[in-house]
């Protein structure tokens, strides 16, 4: 490897980047737009759950229960006169859940102590349904306590579970989604930047001219990798700044660790782009592969939204070839917890292996041959 050749290639790549605004758009405009949309658009915190209330026989007891719902910040209750119209509302998506108190509610609660609060949720979005159930459950428990106190009795709760959530006590989903989003955006940038660059050189015939010079394949690939990594890091810094200053995500780890892991990740993502680029000699096929293999796998298989441990075993194995998987974990730790080496090291190791595999394939499959 000769420094002069590598430097020459890097300089060439830099000029091309600077003179083609679309690369700069990919590195800086794309993360800006995506992070804004995602940051505001993706949230799992249920807010203003619209609840249809049906009370067949209003009493003081039912009124106190409804007041509790009314006071909760989560619910937006609407009163319906009968079960039928509430069901219609649920059907048409005007209500997320129905709470109905039958006419015998008050009587049963004083006599048998098993008066049913009937909750019906729309189960189509199972995750949301479960969250609604949890919220209603919590509100109902709180009301029980208060009701018992008001009546001078104590509610028997032998075991009281005090929940403490570390790193994100208020369970703000944005705090953990944004680090994950950064990982996904960086995957997109990495693949988009490099997926087309080698295929383009084949199509334009520039590769043939380069190939008959004494330059080695390693130099050609590094000449692509380094400038694009630098640009990707620029995008990363911008995203981090946005996360901290715009979305108020705490950054508890050190910047050094954050950017070192980001550099390693970018190398992996760019390596994957290079593999696509080397394998597909036409831009059209490279584009198709890039679309299919980057965004959706990073979105679904990285653990950013769906818990990897809950996936079937075979798919859990499959997630190991998704670079974003490691990066999502590391970013969530870096932002919310700090430099925890027992998280960083194994994930960095996994990513390094993946990186080596991608670069190895790119190097192995990319030979200075036309056949």
């Amino acid at each position, binding site marked *: 490897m000769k420094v002069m050749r590598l430097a020459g290639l890097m300089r060439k790549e830099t000029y091309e980047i600077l003179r083609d605004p679309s690369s700069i758009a990919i590195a800086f405009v*794309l993360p800006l*737009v*995506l992070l804004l949309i995602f940051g*505001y*658009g*993706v*949230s*799992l915190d*249920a807010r203003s759950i619209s609840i249809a209330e049906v009370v067949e026989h209003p009493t003081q007891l039912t009124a106190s229960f409804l007041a509790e719902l009314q006071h909760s910040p989560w619910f937006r209750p609407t009163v319906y006169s009968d079960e039928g119209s509430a069901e219609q509302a649920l*059907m048409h*998506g005007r209500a997320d859940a129905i709470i109905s108190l039958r006419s015998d509610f008050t009587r049963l609660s004083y006599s048998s*102590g098993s008066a*049913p*609060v009937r*909750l*019906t*949720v729309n*189960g*189509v*979005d*199972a*995750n949301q*349904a479960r*969250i609604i159930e949890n919220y209603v*459950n919590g509100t*109902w428990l709180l009301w029980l306590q208060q*009701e*018992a106190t008001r009546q001078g009795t104590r509610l*028997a*709760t*032998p*075991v*009281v579970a005090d*929940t*403490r*959530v*570390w*790193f994100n006590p208020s369970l703000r989903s944005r*705090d953990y989604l944004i680090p994950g989003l950064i990982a996904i955006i960086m995957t997109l940038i990495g693949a*988009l930047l490099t997926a087309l660059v080698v295929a*383009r050189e084949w199509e334009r015939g520039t590769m043939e001219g380069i190939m008959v010079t004494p330059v080695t394949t390693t130099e050609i690939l590094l000449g692509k990798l380094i400038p694009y990594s630098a640009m990707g890091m620029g995008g990363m810094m911008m995203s981090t700044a946005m996360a901290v200053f715009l979305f108020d995500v705490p950054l508890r780890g050190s910047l050094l660790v954050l950017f070192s892991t980001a550099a390693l990740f970018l190398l992996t993502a760019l390596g994957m782009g290079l593999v696509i680029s080397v394998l*597909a000699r036409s*831009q*059209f096929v490279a584009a*198709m592969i890039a*679309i299919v293999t980057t*965004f*959706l796998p990073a979105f*679904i298989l990285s653990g950013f*939204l*769906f*818990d990897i*441990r*809950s996936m079937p075993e075979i*798919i859990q194995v499959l997630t190991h070839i998704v670079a974003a998987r490691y990066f999502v*974990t590391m970013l*969530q*730790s870096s932002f919310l917890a700090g430099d*925890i080496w027992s*998280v960083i090291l194994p994930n960095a190791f996994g990513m390094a292996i993946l990186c080596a595999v991608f670069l190895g394939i790119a190097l192995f499959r990319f030979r200075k041959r036309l056949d």
Partner: protein
Amino acid sequence: MRLIFQRVFALTIKELLALLRDAASRAVLIGPPIIQLLVFGYAATFELKHVPFVVYNQDQGQLSRDFIARFAGSPSFDLLSMVHDQKGLEQAIDNKSALMAIDIGPNFSSDLERGRATHVQLILDGRDSNTAGLATGYAQSIVTTFNGVQIAEHGGNPPSTVLLDRAWFNPNLDSQWFIVPGICGILTLLVSLLTTGLSVAREREMGTFDQLLVTPMRPTEILLGKALPGFLVGTVEGSLIVMVSIFWFHVPFTGSLLGLYLGLFCFLLSTVGIGLMISSLAVTQQQGLLGVFLFMVPAIVLSGFATPIANMPEVVQYITLLDPLRYFLVILRGSFLEGAGPSLFWPQYWPLAVIGIISMIVAGRLFRRRLS
């Protein structure tokens, strides 16, 4: 008129041949959507299974062991290990080996036996707060069941009411039923965008576009000839994906096929229209690819595929009104799970049709402007 039909038909056939005769593009068009449906259908689940937890048990009695056994025996939780000090507990959470830790104090059994309330601490890793939130709910319900047994055995004042919950359309709250129809929508979007979004740029780069322009075909005919293949491929692939969902994933299909296909038609009208808009703007394939990405990624994120639209800030909610996938997901989920038919879908059909018609007109304008 017959001539126009003949020319558009010829162009459609040509587009389909060009897509399907090339082994690489054929493979990319058919293989990945099915593979993705299979992989993502299993991967995208919000259910919690096997959440690893550790226990720091300072209590010596039998009751604490019963309490732990209830967690360990639940399909949602897996007991990772017992730790022997606070530090072990902290480490397990820190290095993400456990998502939850249960800290049981020394007086757990004795308190309960004396009929006194006792406290346990549940510590959760908030780095993944969705999982943490769900796990809290699961844990609470285990604790509630345990309490019920305790009250029955040791007496006490039970709560005066019970909460009975049930879920419509998806009684077991199976999140696969929710996700798989969503993936159907995403993949249909992907395929129809890919077939239309790069097609004009590709002809421009290959130089065949001029050859096309010197024939007596009108711009509108060319555009129609580019739109139809997107429609056909989208319909065929969409149907295939729906079939896999029904017969492989056993997602119940309770609605009407007519309602679904009307929706698919309107949806394709809008995605093909948007694809053609990208196509008429892009000079190179790279720009086309960028355009497809810039539309597709927000369209998926803002569609309510994984995170509910109701959770978004109001401004963003207005933006989602422009997202065709948003409407199509309602139609898909409605048709699959809610047993809804065409009459319930009018609020979805008309925005899709409007987006489709407007984007087609804009694409036609842009296309004609590009030519001059």
